[in-house]
């Protein structure tokens, strides 16, 4: 773990008596390596290290009998601050229904997460319905229909529509008639560099005017996370991120990168394939996970 690495760094250094600036830089290098190995973005790591360097050169470390522990404390606090306060509440529409739009790269977990959120909100008392707006992936509509049946949430599917916009418009009418107060919209996976598909989702967002536009991201995403988050945020103005597959052993550094670059809060964590595999995002937990 990082704590152990820092202990051994400082053990070598403390034998010479007082700590020097070079000693602190040696410890900062260990931190840099740990963050990079946890998939935190290269530039985000650079900025983070220079931000904590000043504090690491302060008395709390230099004059401590346990400098390694002090440095770990500073790093942990710095990461938790960067990740922001835990904020898993979802915005609601002043005039129902509340619309929640899920977007993201191919295979990140949108369809599954859509159903997980539906289950969660239904259990909290909302009248939820699901809208499958992915008309391109084979059996995508079936996938959401199947999941909706599992949790007994209505799915308004119009797979014969000529566009996701049309599918949403028709579903939205049905949702109104059915008295749904919360509409969850699943969209097709898309690349942030696919201009046509980004235009399509931007048009859908304009039509639906969702209270929440959530980027669904795989926790094992590497350095590319900042590019994806930045692009989707610029086109759609994201209100939240959901990090999926955190039940694996990926360190999840992408969370830090995306939050630091866009300021968008991570609201939930996907922690399993089952529909109960969703929990509020805990910044301190992911900070510990990133540090190993």
């Amino acid at each position, binding site marked *: 773990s990082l704590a152990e690495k820092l202990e051994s760094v400082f053990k070598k250094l403390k034998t010479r008596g007082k700590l020097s600036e070079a000693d602190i830089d040696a410890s900062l290098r260990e931190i840099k*390596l740990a963050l*990079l*190995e*946890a*998939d935190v*973005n*290269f530039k985000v790591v650079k900025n983070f290290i220079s931000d904590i360097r000043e504090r690491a050169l302060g008395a709390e470390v230099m004059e401590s009998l346990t400098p390694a522990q002090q440095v770990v404390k500073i790093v942990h606090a710095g990461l938790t601050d960067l990740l922001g306060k835990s904020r898993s509440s979802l915005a609601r529409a002043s005039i129902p229904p509340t619309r929640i739009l899920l977007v993201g*790269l*191919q*295979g*990140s*977990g949108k369809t599954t997460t859509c159903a997980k959120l539906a289950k969660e909100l239904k259990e909290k008392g909302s009248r939820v319905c699901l809208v499958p707006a992915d008309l*391109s*992936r*084979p*059996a*995508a509509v*079936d*996938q959401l229909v*199947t*999941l909706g049946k*599992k949790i007994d949430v209505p799915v308004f599917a119009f797979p014969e529509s000529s566009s996701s916009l049309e599918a949403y418009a028709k579903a939205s009418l049905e949702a109104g008639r059915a008295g749904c107060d919360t509409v969850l919209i699943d969209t097709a996976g898309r*690349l*942030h*560099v696919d201009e046509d598909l980004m235009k399509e989702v931007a048009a859908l967002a304009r039509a639906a005017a969702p209270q929440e536009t959530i980027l669904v991201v*795989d926790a*094992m*995403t*590497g*350095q*590319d*996370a900042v*590019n*994806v988050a930045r692009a989707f945020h610029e086109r759609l103005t994201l209100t939240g991120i959901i990090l999926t*597959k955190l*039940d*694996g*052993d*990926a*360190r999840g*550094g*992408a969370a830090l990168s995306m939050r630091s670059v866009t300021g968008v809060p991570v609201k939930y964590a996907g922690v399993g*394939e089952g529909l109960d595999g969703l929990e509020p995002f805990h910044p301190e937990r992911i900070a510990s996970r990133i540090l190993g």
Partner: protein
Amino acid sequence: FGLGRTLQAADMESLEEILIGSDVGVASSERIIKDLEKAISALPSPPTQDFLADLLREEITALLSAAGGHQVLESPPEGSRPRVVLVVGVNGSGKTTTIGKLAARMVKGGQKVLIAGADTYRAAAIGQLEIWARRAGVDFVGGVEGGDPASVVHDALSAAMAKGVDTVIIDTAGRLHTKIPLMKELEKIVRVAGKVTGRPPDSVLLVLDATTGQNALVQAREFSRSAAVSGIILTKMDGTAKGGILIPLSTELGLPILYVGLGEGIGDLVPFSPEEFAKGMVG
């Protein structure tokens, strides 16, 4: 004596940025930079940016020369029939889609192909694969949702042997390597396939998403333990991720890289080219 030229700080920085930023990882990046320093140590004058870029491209290409093997897969098997290709990987990496693409390439290579839908877990997985089988123009044997994947493998391989199929491609459910019961299930699938044909699967392809960071190494190690992975397919290289994790995968695990996925259409699977890959990373 050597002139002992070393990299300028600015050059070092931009090399690190390219490598780390491409998910090559710290250890492999440091090794590559050391190799470049050796290469420039006897230069009479400082290397230009272009010269360094050329060196880097050559270095990456050399590290990835464990490519190839796709021609064998696409032509009818020389040995016993059917050739069995097992496709594995974590959730959402692109296995099902890749199988559709691969089957289409095999049909072009003159093969009679059967696709086995052994993902009996995920909603609409069987339907999704069935559509791909139809698009590729190949036979399909699927299970029932909630059924035992090993029994689908048994049925598909028995059918393939009876029908004189050249290659069977087996789709499996996405699984995280941290889930021991799921990895045990994968080991069972491998065993059952072996029981039906009398030999282990001919090819076990690990499908990796190019956007994956350092966890890809762990995935490759763990899947190799349960299913003797023989090759890698890297998907979603049409995005902005550079897939640099292929470098440590190649140098540390020696796994050949067979194909790259470049999109969601049936034709979007190309044989892996180290030169193209290096160009994509360095520019």
